[in-house]
């Protein structure tokens, strides 16, 4: 459009912001915070502009840019967005200002903190727009660095092991994925996602890889699965899928809450995005081979994380597990769409529903989780860092506005109709029941547990006898109310009019679903 490389500009804006913030230095902390916020709002504005010019009726890549980079490695600089990419851009652009607002009280090394947040935003934009593995992987890996330091420097008492665990887990996954893609490159001489997907579609990809690697003591039939397992591991750790999730509660709990918002709101979507953009189009034959185990993993992710949340006492850990649970529904939908039951023409609309639900849920979870953690940050600020489920009680009486607004966010997380959390989960279950009834039925347990632990939180924190410690707690300030207002409004808007998101995603969803064929 107009020859302006919109996506490159968008990716560059936060980096420029990071440099500007660093150049300002720590003399005037308030100014530093506002400059950082200004750049993130500029990025939001740009994203909205892109949305405005985006053609939702087309499922093809738009805003494409392509330049040869390292010819020998098949590495092009190729970026572009479809509905999925745009949705993720919007999410990242919304979540980062929220994370900054929730980090306003951070007072130590302010320029570095906000520079790292902006750097993280650039990496997110890059990950969600890159269409060549080489270039995508740069952002995917680089995003670990700001996240690591945000946890490591500003985190809670056990930040060192938490940050390390986060880094090493993710790196193991990334290296496995890298090795898998190098094997693909070896056979195809391309890193381009579209080309790889086209090869997978025509059924040439895996035979080519097998031909390259066979005769080297591997069992031929296992090569394709081995390559798939490597790629899968990279995403499974990132999402995370049970049992690769153990890094997440520690990282979320120890990170400063503003950072937790970024981790859960935007970074956790990198894994799901990768599954949709890379794993499904390129590896769907292998995924279909192990579809039942994959569905079991999704069910386990949903149910086990729900029960784990029930057992937690720290509010941040509760919602860390709740995040795993919510993303589990997306996994359930994505895996169920791969299923073919013999009645496929009739089920196509169910598949569209499930997939649309998954995308909607990704956006909604990002928004809701960001809001919930923001409220936790506000609570922490008033309680001097206390955030145990049992540390409060009866807050409704002293901070009615906060109780009310946080209640909205919590109910959204619970999936109350009328709020944003509902539509996605509804579409997912609507679509998955006809495709994989047993998995959907088991997953309902997760919905049930979610309701229990969220209502438990509301009950323990806001109702009951007032904890005498908090008699003097102050309610939300005007500034806090005004900054929360757009987020709450967005939650209602999406709850009542999910079409806003579906208009962006629907064509892309149809494209993704139609690409998947029965491989056997």
């Amino acid at each position, binding site marked *: 459009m107009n020859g302006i490389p919109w996506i490159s500009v968008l990716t560059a804006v936060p980096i420029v912001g990071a440099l500007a913030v660093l150049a300002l230095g720590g003399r005037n902390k308030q100014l530093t915070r506002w400059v950082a916020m200004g750049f993130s709002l500029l990025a939001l504005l740009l994203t909205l502009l892109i949305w405005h010019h985006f053609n939702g009726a087309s499922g093809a890549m738009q805003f494409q840019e392509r330049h040869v*980079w*390292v*010819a*020998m*490695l098949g590495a092009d600089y190729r970026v572009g967005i479809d509905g999925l990419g745009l949705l993720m851009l919007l999410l990242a652009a919304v979540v980062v200002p929220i994370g900054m607002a929730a980090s306003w009280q951070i007072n130590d090394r302010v320029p570095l903190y906000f520079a790292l947040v902006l750097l993280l935003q650039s990496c997110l934009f890059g990950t969600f727009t890159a269409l060549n593995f*080489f270039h995508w*992987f*740069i952002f*995917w*890996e*680089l995003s670990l*660095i700001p996240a690591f330091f945000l946890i*490591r*420097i500003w985190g809670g008492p056990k930040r*060192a092991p938490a940050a*390390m665990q986060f*880094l*090493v887990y993710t*790196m*193991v996954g990334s*290296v*496995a994925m*890298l*090795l898998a893609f*190098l*094997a693909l*490159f*070896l056979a195809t001489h391309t890193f381009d996602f579209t080309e790889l997907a086209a090869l997978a579609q025509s059924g040439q990809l895996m035979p080519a890889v097998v031909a*390259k*690697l066979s005769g*080297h*003591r*591997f069992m031929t039939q296992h090569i394709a699965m081995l390559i798939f397992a490597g790629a899968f591991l990279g995403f499974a750790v990132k999402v995370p899928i049970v049992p690769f999730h153990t890094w997440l509660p520690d990282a979320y709990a120890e990170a400063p809450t503003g950072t937790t918002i970024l981790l859960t709101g935007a970074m956790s979507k990198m894994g799901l995005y990768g599954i949709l953009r890379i794993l499904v189009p390129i590896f769907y034959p292998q995924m279909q081979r192990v579809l039942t185990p994959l569905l079991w993993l999704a069910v386990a992710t949903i149910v086990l994380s729900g029960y784990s949340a029930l057992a937690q006492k720290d509010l941040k850990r509760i919602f860390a597990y709740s995040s795993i649970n919510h993303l589990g529904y997306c996994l359930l939908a994505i895996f169920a769409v791969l299923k073919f039951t013999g009645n496929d023409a009739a089920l196509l609309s169910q598949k569209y529903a499930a997939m649309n639900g998954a995308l909607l849920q990704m956006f909604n979870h990002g928004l809701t989780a960001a809001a919930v953690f923001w409220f936790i940050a506000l609570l922490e600020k008033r309680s001097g860092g206390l955030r145990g489920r049992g540390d409060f009680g009866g807050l409704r009486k002293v901070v009615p506005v906060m109780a009310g607004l946080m209640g909205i966010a919590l109910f959204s997380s619970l999936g109350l109709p009328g709020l944003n959390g509902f539509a996605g989960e509804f579409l997912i279950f609507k679509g998955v029941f006809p495709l994989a009834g047993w998995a959907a039925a088991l997953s309902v347990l997760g919905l049930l547990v979610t309701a229990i632990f969220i209502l438990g939180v509301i009950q323990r924190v806001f109702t009951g006898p007032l904890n005498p410690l908090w008699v003097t707690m102050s309610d939300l300030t005007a500034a806090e109310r005004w900054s929360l207002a757009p987020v709450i409004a967005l939650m209602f808007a999406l709850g009542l009019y999910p079409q806003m998101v579906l208009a962006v995603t629907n064509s892309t969803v149809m494209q993704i679903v139609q690409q998947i064929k029965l491989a056997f």
Partner: protein
Amino acid sequence: MVAWTIYISFLGAVALLLMPKGNAALARTVALLTALAGFALALTAFAQQRTGEMLTVTRVPWIPSLGIQYHLAADGISLSLVLLTGVIAVAGILFSWNIALRTNEFFAFYLLLIGAVYGVFLSYDLFLLFVFYEIVIIPKYFLIAIWGSTRREYGAMKLALYSFVGSAMVLVGLIAAFVVAGAKSMALGDLAGYAFPLHFQMWAFPLVFVGFAILAGLWPFHTWAPTGHVAAPTAASMLLAGVVMKLGAYGCLRVAMTLFPLGLMPWGFHVLGMGSWRDVFAVLAVIGIVYGAMVALVQRDFKFVIGYSSVSHMGFILLGLMTLNQIGLSGAVLQMVSHGILAGLMFAVVGRMVYDRTHTRDLNALGGFNLSRTIPFAAFAFVVAGMGSMGLPGFSGFVAELMIVIGAWRAFPLLAIVVGVGIVVGVAYIWRAMQKAFFAEPGSAVAHEPLAPISIPEKLGAGILIVASVAVGLYPQMLLKIVVPALNSPLFDGLRKGNWQ
């Protein structure tokens, strides 16, 4: 022109020895100007090289009766490494700005070493190459023995002995080749063109390869490297890891593999699953990658961590050479440059920025200094170097290791998976060292003298190395466009005919 990199370095060394003692500032300036001139020449030659093919620079008869000539030539591979040498030389001098003991001699030895390194990379005549290769050992020994620290005599002597054993093996191989070929010339091209008998290559190849690979830190002949690095003064560690180890790798490629390509052919029988020297060295290289990383993971001495990390990264180079495919070989050359830059940066941070201020390299003790606050620039530089070293995309290490692993997937798929383990351990040891040294909680309230802030030369030196690494990382084409044609040149015909894929 590029030949002047050698002469100007030697001239600088002589000038420094002739100059009046006691004026350290003058000595530093002269050394820096000399290194800068060398760097400028290297850069000019690099920029002018378009095709990557071997171009003769100077050629005059030297010992006509033996067919030995003073013959310098450069192709894409040599020029990449010459450029690396120029970068490291400048940065090393910037990081030696605080040398007060016998400054003139220090820089004289330093420049002598640099000049000889340029010489090795530019030699086309193998006798000449060997002469330069030997000259390198002498200043290396003195730099460590006089200006070194922990167990410096031991480290220097071990390094010198290992080097001499290696060169003896190389010399035997070269003389044998000269005799067998009955040649009238020691020029690389002439000897490479001669078809040595298979059984001769089968023993000459491992002899010469190991002779060079000792200096490249091939496991299990690597043990000189960590002790030598630790004992050496900062600038010498930088040179040692940055360029001297590359001499070994360069020799493996340029001499051993070029002259005796048939030595890589299968033996016709298997021992422990290995059926050729190629398999043997690939396995040793991978052991080096994983072993070096694992040992680095448990070190308490900061410099030992970096020392063992060099062993691990040099393993990548040797593995890349053994893949015998274009992408793996190009990756190996790229890794030579990349590791030179990053190891230089790491040793600069550890030796100069940290050790010269805190006088300890014990990772647990360093935690008490709260270095990420007192000298944040050092923490920043180490984080960048660490990210590059662990192969994070965007830095030179990533492209290089990526290409090597692609090559390895093709040649040795099982080893490629083991390398994955090595990469993960590599991430772990870098972050462990970084956490302990820079980000540990200052628990015990030990009162320390305030640390001197990072000086301008240090920042400049680190800046040069960081820019170099990011430039190669983001635009590897810069090197690849001359390295790849060089690998496709007739010089490597033998290698290509045998096993090239």
